[in-house]
């Protein structure tokens, strides 16, 4: 690890993109226009499940102002029997998700799209498209979808040789659970349900696509990865990746929901057909109906412990909704559920269940909050049964360096214990509670990811620095990059500009996701900057005519060292830059890596609630998150991740859910009816940053962004139990449900 001087790393610098974002200059997905631009709209299925017998677009095409119409036949088809993966996405499903092919699989599934001179004409033309449907029986909830006589979405998905809605299974085993349970003095088994929730980014999906007559395409869009946009668009349109330039707009929130695309291939096809730049923006209603959400779930968790509080066995079964096409985050649910604990005998099982809902997309630690909700509630019950403090029980069983996790790894140095100890020692944990108030705790784990990243660090002729990376900056990552570069070069932070390159100007970089951006970009930026420093030393050596080994780089300048110390006046970055062309040319370096060593992240949350017994409203009174972040490069944005995740978790626990009507249609597709926390719903969200440096990272960074959403569901739920003396086994604990439980008592 580098010596940390703390001049810039760990400072609360002003983000490089900040001024643009507080003045309205920053260009998001919907903010770019082009001369000659036309607008496209999508025609969506009015049915939850229907075979598409015929589509007649002739009337739409004849409408004045219409420039192009497309259907699934314009999208590259990937046969059902052969998987083609891009990251975790299978193109078989993506090609059917962006445009319904054999069948419409959910209400809101795209069936056709029209580009016209105005949005109004495009919408009018959509209404003129005739689609003949054979309406099929549909199924929405997991418990219905896994029944033997359930309507089957896909005949080709088979379980034990028979068509099934169970599209996948994942299993983790450690030790022998039966033997483990036999040793237990207390065994508790419970069933839980959670509802699908949407990522809720405030910026809708939007893009602008232009295709020039030579077939080269440019895409401006807001996503969690311009390279993902390029690759998926290439797959779905057949255009080579080298002919697509994907330019990342500023992104107005993603939380995983923008790790796949919906509009770009449609706009690309329409732009190619019409010869005009095509702009598309999803309405909020479309965002709710046909993008995201994360899975709803049904789980069963059984945990056994000895009298002295040692957890000896744990078993979990997690059914997750995939939506209409396979691919729910069972790995996150089954893999993370027991990962915080050192348990010798574990059996964790996940099932991927399709039903007639929109295909799920990643949502912040995908699947992990679902697993943790069930496990952390049962752990709470175990503590109660053993008359132990719930944090002490967690501490006693906490995973540490050397613990073998059921999902595979043996942990290196991790900071889980430190999060629990910090929570135990915090005044919040001892603060008195009033009537109808309760306190809950929960912990959580997320894998974190490394993966491909690229960076280019260039010294300008006037001796300043421009850093380009390939990751859309959702929450301040440019500030972290600037902090690191300034630190290593020993120059003022303000002399570093940080840009996000497009697919033509920077090397391949994987998604802004998996809590990987600060981790991975710090690695490539560090290596690039170190190369630049080597060059700067060489140039100074050349000027002084001494050996480069005899030059050090300190405090932003080259200094002669060893025998030569003091012989020449130091050369600043600006002085070396000014002589660059005489000493060997431009100064800059790029590094591309497949980064590894992103060790897991852990957090413990403490939540106080008050329940209004008349109205059934649960209010969060106080909330404190304790998280091991490895090293906080920019503490404000680390805290921001912790606070944002806690708020989303509180929404998931208390108010957010999809409501379906009797015809299998989403009945609450608006911000008014899909109830995310607003400012007056929340208290301040306190954070305690714990820094147990990741030994595998130059600055000690661990991923930060996703862990914060793992503990809150159970923390809130356990707090409600503590307030009411009654447990909820399903979310959200919205006022009608709270009243139901209170009245049923």
């Amino acid at each position, binding site marked *: 690890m580098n010596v940390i001087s703390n001049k810039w790393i760990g400072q*609360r610098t*002003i*983000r490089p*993109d*900040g*001024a643009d*974002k*507080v*003045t*309205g*200059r*920053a*260009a*998001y997905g*919907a*903010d770019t*226009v082009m001369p000659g631009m036309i607008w496209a709209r999508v025609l969506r299925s009015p049915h939850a499940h229907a075979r598409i017998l015929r589509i007649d677009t002739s009337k739409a095409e004849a409408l004045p102002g219409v420039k192009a119409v497309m259907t699934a036949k314009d999208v590259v088809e990937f046969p059902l029997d052969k998987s083609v993966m891009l990251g975790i996405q299978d193109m078989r499903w993506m090609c059917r998700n962006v445009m319904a092919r054999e069948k419409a699989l959910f209400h809101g599934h795209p069936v056709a799209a029209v580009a016209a001179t105005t949005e109004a004409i495009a919408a009018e033309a959509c209404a003129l498209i005739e689609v003949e449907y054979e309406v099929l029986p549909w199924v929405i909830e997991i418990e219905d979808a896994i029944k033997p006589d359930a309507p089957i979405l896909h005949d080709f998905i088979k379980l034990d040789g028979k068509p099934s809605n169970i599209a996948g299974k994942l299993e983790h085993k450690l030790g022998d659970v039966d033997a483990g349970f036999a040793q237990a003095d207390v065994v508790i088994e419970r069933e839980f349900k959670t509802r699908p929730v949407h*990522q*809720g*980014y*405030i*910026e*809708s999906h939007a893009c602008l696509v232009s295709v020039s007559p030579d077939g080269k395409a440019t895409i401006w869009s807001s996503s969690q990865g311009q390279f993902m946009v390029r690759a998926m668009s290439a797959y779905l349109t057949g255009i080579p990746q080298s002919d697509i330039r994907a330019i990342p707009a*500023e*992104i*107005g*929130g*993603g*939380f995983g929901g923008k790790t796949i695309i919906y509009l770009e291939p449609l706009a690309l096809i329409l732009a190619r057909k019409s010869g005009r730049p095509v702009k598309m*923006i999803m*309405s*909020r209603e479309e965002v709710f109906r046909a993008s995201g959400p994360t899975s709803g779930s049904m789980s069963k968790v059984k945990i056994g412990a000895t009298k002295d509080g040692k957890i000896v066995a744990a078993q979990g079964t997690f059914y997750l909704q995939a939506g209409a096409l396979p691919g729910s985050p069972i790995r996150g649910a089954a893999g993370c559920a027991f990962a915080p604990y050192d348990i010798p005998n574990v059996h964790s099982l996940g099932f991927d269940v399709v039903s007639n809902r929109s295909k799920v997309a990643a949502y912040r630690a995908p699947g992990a909050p679902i697993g943790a909700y069930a496990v952390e509630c049962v752990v709470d019950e175990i503590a109660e049964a053993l008359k132990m403090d719930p944090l002490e029980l967690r501490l006693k069983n906490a995973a540490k360096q050397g613990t073998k996790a059921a999902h595979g790894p043996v942990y290196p140095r991790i900071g889980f214990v430190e999060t629990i100890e910090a929570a135990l020692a915090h005044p919040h944990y001892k603060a008195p509670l009033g009537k109808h108030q309760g306190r809950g705790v929960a912990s959580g784990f997320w894998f974190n990811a490394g993966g491909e990243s690229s960076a280019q660090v260039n010294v300008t002729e006037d001796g300043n620095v421009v850093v380009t990376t390939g990751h859309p900056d*959702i*929450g*301040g990552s440019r500030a972290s990059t600037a902090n690191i570069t300034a630190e290593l070069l020993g120059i003022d932070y303000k002399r570093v500009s940080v840009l996000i390159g497009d697919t033509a100007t920077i090397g391949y970089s994987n998604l802004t996701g998996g809590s990987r951006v600060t981790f991975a970009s710090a690695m490539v930026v560090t290596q690039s900057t170190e190369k630049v420093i080597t060059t700067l030393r060489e140039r100074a050596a050349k000027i002084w005519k001494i050996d480069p080994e005899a030059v050090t780089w300190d405090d932003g300048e080259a200094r002669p060292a060893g025998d030569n110390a003091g012989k020449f006046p130091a050369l600043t970055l600006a002085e070396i830059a000014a002589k660059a062309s005489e000493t060997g040319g431009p100064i800059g370096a790029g590094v591309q890596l497949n980064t590894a060593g992103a060790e897991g992240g852990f957090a413990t949350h403490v939540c106080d609630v008050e329940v209004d017994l008349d109205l059934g409203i649960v209010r969060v009174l106080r909330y404190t998150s304790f998280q091991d972040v490895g090293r906080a490069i920019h503490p*404000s*944005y680390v*805290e*921001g*991740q912790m*606070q*944002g*995740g*806690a*708020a*989303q978790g509180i929404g998931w626990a208390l108010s957010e859910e999809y409501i379906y009507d009797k015809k299998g249609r989403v009945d609450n597709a*608006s*911000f*008014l009816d899909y109830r*995310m*926390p*607003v*400012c*007056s*719903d*929340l208290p*301040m*969200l306190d954070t305690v940053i714990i820094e147990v440096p990741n030994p595998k990272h130059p600055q000690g960074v661990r991923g930060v962004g996703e862990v914060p959403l793992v503990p809150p569901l159970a923390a809130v739920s356990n707090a409600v139990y503590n307030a009411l003396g009654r447990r909820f086994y399903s979310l959200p604990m919205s006022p009608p449900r709270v009243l139901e439980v209170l009245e049923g008592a």
Partner: protein
Amino acid sequence: MAKLHVATTINGEPMEFLCDPGQSLLDALRGTLGLTGTKEGCGTGDCGACSITLDGRLVCSCLMLAAEAEGREIATIEGMAAGEDLHPLQQKFLEMAALQCGICTPGMLIAARNLLERNPDPTETEVRFWLAGNLCRCTGYDKIVRAVMETAEEMRGAAR
């Protein structure tokens, strides 16, 4: 459909534009006038991303017809800074990291400025209820509320 002619004032500048009778003010601002600093999150009055002030009153521009701007004074995010001098709220939002993705930020700033004009000394609860119409999915509101309170304090100090 014949377009309507609208004469209005935006950020202190007289402006004229043509609009469809059914066009929202948000659409006219973002589309016709190219003032894309005002954001759209829903188009139905539920997120506050499109917040502007109309004759000093905080409104959702997505819920207003463009034609209703006739003869009125509109303030948008583009007029909040005076040249290079950021408004104290803008500066504080940067210093305190009260934005992550930033899509809610223009609306938040417009709403917060409007609050401080009416109530220079708001309580935390007053800030929270005033901003309850402005959704932010990234921050959990903590740093936003703190930034507004701190700006209020500083502005009171400066006014003394």
